[in-house]
């Protein structure tokens, strides 16, 4: 009896070692394949996303409901104070808005005169809900939204949240899409300072996310015209980002040691910690640039 179990154990032992060896080689091959071929959207991934996205959004709703209930009491206290403050702001903004509307009318008619196209108003947008914040691995700032190719989304479409640029779609399935936020370590956005029209690169950095900042690098600004508080928008140069979308404001700027370029930090207008609904611009840069 003891002998038998001994043999069984030994056999099991050898088999598991062989299995380990085989699977190691197998995963090694997959790693090399995925490294060489870069199949970020493979059929399996697609299938997994297809099945899991609805489940995710279900769980997410439950979670959202729970946290909503918890927030309810906390928020109630703040709301009264905030409401008063907002009311005054609404009044101010209404006045400002009417003025701006008049200005826009005037601008449009002037643009018509100059035969310029109405650049930014014509972007078509659809709303989507964030169903999964993929810092599941803690290292990246990606999120999944609940619309996909069935709703007309495609890779490289720009994603806005509130007033500013939130990210870009990197992968799309029938009922979900993955978005890389601009604060992600892998994100690089070609941008320009809207006051001076100098171009720069907005490069995400993991170690700056806690401070709520993003790197601004390679600012081509020989006359040092850019200053703190200037607006940073996406530039015309990018082949993926549509021009003129607000990214953020400069908070710090200094000249690089090469004395040619400047770099610094911006603070984004989007609050990436509490992003819930986004707008996807369905115009692609590749198509709009005729």
């Amino acid at each position, binding site marked *: 009896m003891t002998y038998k179990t001994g043999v069984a154990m030994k056999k*099991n*032992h050898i*088999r*598991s070692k062989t*299995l*380990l060896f085989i*699977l*190691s080689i*197998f*995963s*090694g*091959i*997959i*790693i090399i*394949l*995925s*490294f060489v071929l870069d*199949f*970020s*959207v*493979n059929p*399996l*991934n697609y299938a*997994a*996303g297809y099945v*899991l996205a609805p*489940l*995710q959004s279900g*769980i*997410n709703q439950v*979670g*959202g409901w729970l*946290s909503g209930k918890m927030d309810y009491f906390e928020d109630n206290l703040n709301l009264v104070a905030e409401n008063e403050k907002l009311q005054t702001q609404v009044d101010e903004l209404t006045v400002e808005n009417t003025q701006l509307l008049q200005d826009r009318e005037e601008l449009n008619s002037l643009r018509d005169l100059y035969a310029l196209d109405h650049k930014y108003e014509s972007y078509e947008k659809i709303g989507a809900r964030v*169903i*999964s*914040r*993929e*810092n*599941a*691995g*803690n*290292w*990246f700032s*990606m999120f999944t939204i609940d619309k996909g190719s069935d709703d007309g989304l495609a890779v490289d479409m720009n994603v806005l949240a509130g007033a500013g640029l939130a990210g870009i779609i990197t*992968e799309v399935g029938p009922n979900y899409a993955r978005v890389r936020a601009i604060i992600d*370590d892998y994100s690089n956005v070609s941008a320009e300072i809207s006051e001076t029209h100098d171009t720069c690169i907005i490069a995400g950095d*993991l*170690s700056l*996310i*806690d401070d709520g900042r993003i790197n601004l690098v390679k600012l081509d600004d020989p006359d040092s015209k850019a200053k703190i508080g200037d607006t940073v928008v996406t530039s015309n140069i990018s082949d993926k980002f549509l021009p003129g979308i607000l990214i953020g404001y400069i908070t710090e700027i200094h000249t690089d040691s090469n004395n040619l370029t400047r770099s610094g930090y911006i603070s984004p207008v989007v609050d990436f*910690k509490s992003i819930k609904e986004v707008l996807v611009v369905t115009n692609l840069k590749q198509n709009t640039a005729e």
Partner: protein
Amino acid sequence: MRTKLILFATMLICLLLQCSLLPAISIASITPNLMIIFTVSFGLMRGKRSGLILGFICGLFTDLMLPDLFIGLRAFVYMYIGYFSGYCYHIFYDEDIKMPVLLTAAGDFVYGCLFYITKFLLRGRIDLIYYIRRIILPEMIYTILLTIICYRIFLLLNQKLEKMDKRSVGSFV
């Protein structure tokens, strides 16, 4: 077969939680790693072979769900984590919480370092101390906390499964 199906379903549930619920309860934008807890727990409770197979499948599915690494790297790491947890199968009692905690901590640390090396160090982000302090260690600690809760649940599940296996073997004989 039924055991395998139940284990697979448990893994899928864990994966779903990892992708949706756990980010919602993250502290300081650090999410615990439930998949490592799953791998270590079942490796420890079911032995090397189960550990390495479960780890491999677990890693592969996580790779497919979160394609931020090279596909297969997680499968590789989790497989070894499961395998080494399986080494302790004969040495330690299931009920002892110290061993899974220790193994999860070690596994998560190794996983974090490997992730840093492949995705950040190779791109010239050399501030290892920052990444350890900000991400790897907090993730480890949070994962340990979660282990203390989850291991008990996994233990109960495994006891049920083993009872079920014994019963089905008995009825077969």
